[in-house]
């Protein structure tokens, strides 16, 4: 009988997993999004268990033409855009849900597409986009709703990532992640370093110069210079190359591309120089450290500014933004898409068309700082004049547009997110003292190969 009970337990292991997920996230106040994820997963499981259903069946969404459901991720303040939209269109009811972080949102969307209740509108982070591009039939071709009139407004290399080879557009880009470095002026002053943003930018034209500044800082204060190397160095440097994990023929080349190896080695050098606080990004210690000044610099792609403001509100005025060593680059950026089974695609499209027009993106930038994907506004005097008091009145419009105009776009493939995660995790293991630096590259390649096979 015991064996029998075990059989039963293992048989419903999938159900157990999702039940646990619902029950257990409650404390973090993430109940709502977990329920969404779990319901979507449950629905997907149910669909799989009832077999034979193809994606595309099942009911979804709200039927009220003035209501639509919108899934976004946390940390980018989508509510502000929704409020701006509904103040012009009070008749529209936007049901916004922040599902989770970027990959949790993509997971929930995948589960929903597989047979659950889909939203009418969803925000997808750039690295997750290629996975969805492999099955474009799950989304509305936005050219049928009028996107063909708009595609010319966006940076080519950004809109091309959401356009299929036969010309279907499944996502409209909302922002790009122009790169910069955020630093604490109070801590720089205490270490005897310049605090003026132009002087600071001149301190580190290259990553090697950045390392030297770091060593000076540590020598003067005895405290870590930057938060961590995997996110603040590797994810920046690897995004400054002309190619990343795929070559120009769209073949995997992460293990051969010298630019990836160079970024990886640079990260290891930074770690070995002892300037890293070894505090992994997105952890409670990281957000605490941001407030307490446990580190003096951190990478700050344009969307990170919001994360700093949200996580360390009491550090207002102590930060400033300088240019990033090594030239232009992009990390992040997102797309809005409409699932094929959306109940109310028309309302969702009206939102996209209104908010993601060049004027809409400019207005959002002026309020909240996510960098527009529409180059026509890059020379707009309002954008160039935009400063942010939280960051000592840094001219963020100027700094971030300069980092993306000269960008060398590279192909982002379906396995980019997986490869990036494995490389990052290996470098995190190095920081945690679990992997020796001289074994790190081989370990990383093994981890990537395992992940790609599974």
């Amino acid at each position, binding site marked *: 009988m*015991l*064996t029998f*009970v*075990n*059989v*039963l*337990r*293992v*048989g*419903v*292991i*999938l*159900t*157990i*997993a999702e039940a*646990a*997920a619902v*029950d*257990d*996230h*409650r*404390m*973090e106040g993430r109940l709502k999004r977990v329920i969404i994820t779990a319901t979507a*997963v449950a629905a*997907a499981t149910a*669909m*799989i*268990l009832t*077999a034979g259903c193809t*994606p595309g069946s099942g009911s979804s969404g709200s039927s009220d033409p003035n209501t639509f459901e919108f899934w976004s991720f946390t940390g980018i303040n989508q509510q502000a855009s929704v409020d701006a939209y509904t103040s012009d269109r009070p008749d529209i009811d936007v049901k916004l849900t922040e599902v989770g972080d970027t990959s949790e949102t993509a*997971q929930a969307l*995948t*589960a929903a*597409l*597989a*047979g659950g209740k889909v939203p009418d509108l969803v925000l997808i982070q750039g690295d997750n986009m290629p996975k969805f591009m*492999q*099955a474009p039939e*799950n989304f509305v071709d936005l050219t049928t709703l009028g996107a063909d009139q708009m595609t010319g407004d966006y940076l080519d290399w950004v809109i091309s990532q959401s356009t299929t080879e036969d010309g279907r557009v499944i996502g409209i880009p909302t922002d790009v992640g122009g790169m910069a470095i955020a630093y604490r002026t109070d801590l720089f002053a205490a270490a005897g370093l310049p605090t003026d943003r132009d002087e600071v930018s001149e301190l580190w034209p290259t990553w090697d110069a950045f390392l030297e500044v770091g060593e000076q800082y540590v020598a003067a204060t005895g405290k870590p210079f930057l938060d961590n190397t995997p996110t603040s160095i590797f994810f920046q440097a690897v995004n400054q190359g002309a190619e990343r994990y795929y070559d120009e023929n769209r073949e995997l080349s992460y293990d051969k591309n010298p630019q990836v190896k160079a970024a990886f080695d640079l990260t290891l050098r930074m770690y070995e120089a002892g300037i890293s606080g070894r505090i*992994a990004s*997105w*952890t*409670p*210690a990281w957000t*605490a*450290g941001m407030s307490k000044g*446990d580190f003096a610099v951190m990478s700050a792609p344009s969307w990170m500014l919001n994360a700093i403001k949200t996580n360390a509100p009491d550090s207002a005025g102590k930060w400033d933004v300088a240019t990033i060593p090594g030239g232009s680059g992009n990390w992040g950026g997102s797309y809005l898409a409409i699932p094929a089974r959306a109940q109310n695609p028309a309302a969702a499209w009206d939102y996209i068309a209104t908010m993601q027009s060049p004027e809409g993106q400019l207005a959002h930038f002026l309020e909240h700082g996510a960098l527009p994907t529409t180059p026509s506004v890059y020379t707009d005097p309002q954008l160039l004049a935009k400063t942010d008091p939280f960051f000592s009145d840094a001219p963020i419009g100027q700094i971030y547009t300069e980092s993306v105009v000269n960008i060398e776009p590279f192909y982002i493939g379906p396995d980019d997110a*997986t490869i990036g995660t494995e490389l*990052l*995790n*290996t470098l*995190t*293991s190095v920081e*945690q*003292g*679990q*992997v020796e630096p001289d074994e790190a590259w081989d370990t990383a390649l093994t981890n990537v190969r*395992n992940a790609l*096979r*599974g």
Partner: protein
Amino acid sequence: MLSPATARKDTGRPTRSRQIQQGVRERLAPYAYIAPFFLLFFIFGLFPLLFTFYIALFDWNPIGERSYVGLKNFSDLVDDPRFWGALRNTFSIWVLSTVPQLLIALGMAHVLNHVRLRAATLFRMSMLVPYVTSVAATTIVFAQLFDRDYGMLNWLLGLLGFEHIDFTASLWGSHFMIAVMVAWRWTGYNTLLYLASLQAVPRDLYEAAAVDGANGWKQFRHITVPSLRPIIVFTVITSTIGGLQIFTEPLLANPVGGLTCGAARQCQTLTLFLYEQAFGRFHFGYGAAIGVALFVLVVIISAINYLLVTRIRSERP
């Protein structure tokens, strides 16, 4: 009021066919009573189980194509160091949590059963508090206690002049941390099981032993432990089954890595690996193969358990 005679007259003399009918009905009735369980079991237990075996034979993407790959998922699994790592983590966390947990529970049950214990009900009831607290709450609090920079444990270590320990980063540190969470949750539950069983042990045994000069330890060894043998076997089995399925603690314990429980998968258990593959990366086929492997594992361990139980039973006086 009907007399027995009129009652018989009303229903009429039972004919032979009626008797048979009634006999059949009586024999079928028990099956009808247990039918709901089996119906539910077939829908939610057996069918998903068999379907998991089926999915394991496919490369199954929930929103894309799916193709039959035969046993490839299983051969991949055997070659996959992540699977063996997860297996090692599962067993290590299980041993680290179960052994101390049951030993402590045994000792506490002995103490709580003592005649001269004041406010016994209070102590006994408070044993259940960890058990009724949400696992997520427990995990988050413990994760903060074990934090490298701001955790209370490391603060204490710092006061005593030791280096801070990064528990979540290392293999043994993270296993230890999760084992503590699991043990904290289940020790009280097991204590109560032991205690309930101890209540059935006649008090005169302890009194007689005390009169004969046996101290607490001797009483524990020669009275408490032998009388608890059946329930000890039971708790070993239930905690084995639970231990192989530890999921929530590793999911929430490590602030780095999420579904992998750390950058190096240092505390990812089998169920978490399954969840990562099936619902994080949407390799349903591979996830199902992990489920099947877990199933085989549980069957093997249950068989060992069964042998042990039968042996212990036959050894009984």
